[in-house]
């Protein structure tokens, strides 16, 4: 095909034999599809004609001007995909999708539970068409149970998964985050679920259904919270900018430098590190004080402790502190804004940022994946434009001719 493609390089990745239908919107399903695309799967993003994925309206946008082809959220979450438009709410559109299912290995969707069924696209129907299909649904609370139809966003998921309660200051309201962590995590569970189902398919010969609940994804990511309760009935409480059980695991103010606010992160939990740290500050006498003799006791007296070490921190910059501590094998780190991370030498050294050109948004540096597969390097191609590959995909996969495509277009189906 002569169609202009965003997939310039030949995909020879680990997943290049796979065709994936990506019916996602916003974050959860989209990130999962992006990961499959990074390893060479042919991921076909299906969007509603006209408006497309809601992530196109979220931004941030270049110079703050809304443009559905230049929303950072969409551009980041849909790299490497082909884009088609299809009105799934019409019988004809759903029919086209069912035809595509015959050619697909996996399907990802994150509609509210029941929506796929209402369009005649539930797993029972689709697996009858293609028994080898692996279908993954991501939803706020899963496909059954009393909260199935509850509404939620990031904050509500953080609340109902027990994550929010432990974030923030004990005297103030619990904190959610402004990012999309619950959706991202559910995408990672869905990705592993799909890969596990594909491995089982190699053995068993048939596909299966993967039900991912965002609430469960986040509820499974607890350490002290659930275990403290199940072991001894203790309830983990917010601890402010601290870890609670050990100290100093915290963010300290320090001397500002290079126009950056003076902040530094410490992660001391181990008694050996704690002793070395106090030696470095020339404050070893605190070890004799029963309030501060180890990191656990220090955690219970952290306000007093912080007042004692504060002068040392205010005398040194983050750069000095991080290196002085790390030279002694004590965990310390910089406190970065996302703009700082873009300039961070460590990320640079691993080639973490990838230059991606997009015809509307321009050239930018995109976060890649935190892992390298030595024998299957991922590819990073730009996000699809709305409906960019509609004709190409329907012609190649389903053999539709110009007349058929024109008819679908006139009917508003594509």
């Amino acid at each position: 095909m002569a169609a202009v493609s965003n997939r310039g390089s030949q995909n020879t990745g680990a997943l290049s034999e796979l065709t994936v239908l990506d019916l996602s919107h916003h974050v959860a399903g989209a990130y999962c599809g992006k990961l499959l695309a990074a390893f060479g799967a042919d991921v076909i993003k299906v969007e509603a004609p006209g408006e497309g994925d809601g992530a196109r309206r979220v931004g941030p946008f270049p110079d703050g001007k809304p443009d559905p082809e230049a929303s950072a959220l969409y551009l980041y979450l849909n790299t490497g995909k082909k884009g088609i438009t299809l009105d799934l709410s019409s019988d004809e559109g759903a029919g086209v999708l069912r035809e595509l299912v015959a050619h697909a290995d996996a399907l990802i969707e994150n509609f509210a539970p029941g929506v796929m069924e209402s369009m005649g696209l539930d797993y029972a129907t689709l697996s009858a068409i293609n028994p080898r299909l692996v279908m993954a649904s991501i939803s706020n609370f899963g496909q059954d149970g009393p909260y199935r139809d509850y509404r939620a966003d990031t904050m509500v998921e953080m609340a109902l998964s027990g994550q929010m309660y432990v974030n923030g200051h004990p005297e103030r309201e619990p904190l959610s985050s402004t990012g999309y962590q619950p959706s991202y995590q559910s995408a990672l569970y869905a990705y592993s679920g799909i890969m596990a189902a594909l491995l089982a398919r190699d053995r068993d010969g048939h596909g299966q259904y993967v039900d991912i609940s965002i609430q469960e994804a986040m509820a499974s990511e607890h350490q002290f919270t659930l275990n403290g309760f199940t072991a001894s009935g203790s309830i983990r409480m917010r601890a402010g900018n601290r870890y609670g059980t050990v100290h100093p695991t915290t963010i300290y103010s320090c001397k500002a430098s290079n126009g950056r606010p003076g902040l530094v992160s410490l992660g001391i939990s181990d008694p050996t590190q704690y002793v070395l740290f106090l030696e470095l500050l020339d404050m070893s006498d605190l070890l004799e004080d029963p309030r501060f003799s180890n990191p656990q006791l220090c955690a219970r007296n952290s306000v007093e402790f912080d007042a004692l070490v504060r002068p040392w921190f205010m005398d040194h910059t983050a750069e000095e502190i991080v290196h002085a501590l790390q030279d002694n094998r004590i965990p310390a780190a910089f406190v970065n804004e996302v703009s700082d991370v873009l300039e961070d030498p460590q990320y640079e050294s691993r080639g973490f940022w990838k230059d991606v050109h997009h015809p509307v948004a321009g050239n930018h540096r995109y976060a890649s994946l935190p892992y390298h597969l030595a024998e299957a390097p991922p590819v990073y191609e730009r996000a699809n434009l709305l409906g960019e590959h509609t004709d190409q995909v329907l012609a190649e996969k389903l053999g539709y001719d110009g007349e058929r495509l024109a008819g679908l277009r006139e009917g508003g189906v594509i």
Partner: protein
Amino acid sequence: MAAPMLANAKGPLDGVRVLDLSRVWAGPHCTRILADLGAEVIHISGRALVGRREVTRETAKVLGTYPDNEPGERHWNRNVLNNDMGRNKLDITLELNTERGVELFKQLVAISDIVIENYSPRVMPNLGIAYPALKAIKPSIIFCSMPGYGPEGPFQHFVSYGTTIDPHSGLASRMGYPGEEPHMSGNAYPDPASGMFATGAILTALFARHRTGVGQHISLAQAESGAALTGEASLGYQLSGEVSPRIGNGHLRKAPHGAYRCAGDDKWIAISVGSEDQWADFCEAIGSPEWAADGHFAMLADRLSNQGELNRHVGEWTRGKNAYDVMWQLQAAGIAAGVVVNADELMNDEHLNQRGFFWMFDHPEAGTHRHAGQPIRLSETPARHYRPAPTLGQHHPYVLGELLGLSADEIAELEETGIIGYVPLVRER
């Protein structure tokens, strides 16, 4: 409530053997998933790294992770944190700083599929068991290393935990009270998040190996997982020239959006109202008090610019109410609202329990406890609750005897010479 639905179905990873050298949380979170999915995960630890020799009742009480705060005779087998991470796994000890220990490890590599470790990058090469050495033994081995910052670059030797990766990676910058400094996750979030990336990477490499027969090295940097999970924000900064400020529980396109105090001690409800339709529904659901009809709050733009006043009103409305009543009432009206649950409420959550999310494990030394189950729900080859966490060295007879063919005498000799054991070693300062 314990889960198996299709009691005879093989797990998707049935027949896959994993050697797990990982510690703390990031690596163990990954191998827990592999084990839940049916892989044979053999956790291998050096006894000096198991934990301190003594745990007093006082320490146990501070940590709260020993059953009934009682460390017992063998505290290392009673730590519920370890038992949560260790479920469905096997356990052996092996001193890898000895020749014999390395020799046995290499014999295990020859009959395994995956090795995973989260040591700092110098440890495995120093022990002589870096990827090239293991590949020479077994070309199809998949080897995942996941140090904090990766095996190259200026910070490669930095000591790190999830709690320091959090601010370094930019994740903490996305949380905080309005106008204040970045706020750490109360839960070392980068740990499980990195574990999830490792799981996906390993399964991708297994899929590739099914086709090519070739294994590979996976190099994961935990610091990069935080940056990948904020990738929309770093791209957004490049597009707009601005870093979005910390706004607490506020939202750029929704109001009211926040956590509001309810009746009782430290009880909160998270309420999120976006569109104009939702605002109308919200007003109706709460009985349309006078302020709701106020022109100050008519359109989203008004509500955003008068957020302080709006939040005060909503907070006054929730204050005397039970948080669950508010959630049920608002959800019935189609409004996103959720109780900010603590550990007790989470484990007793009606919905999670009806879905059978929690798994019960009966551990020989720690007793019966409920733990989070597996969010990966597969219809035909479900994740399973195979066995409780092992005790330290429990599977020496199976792994060293059955798998490697050592005699009982040879295993006893390993114990005598300190290559294996059942009790942690005192950590050297």
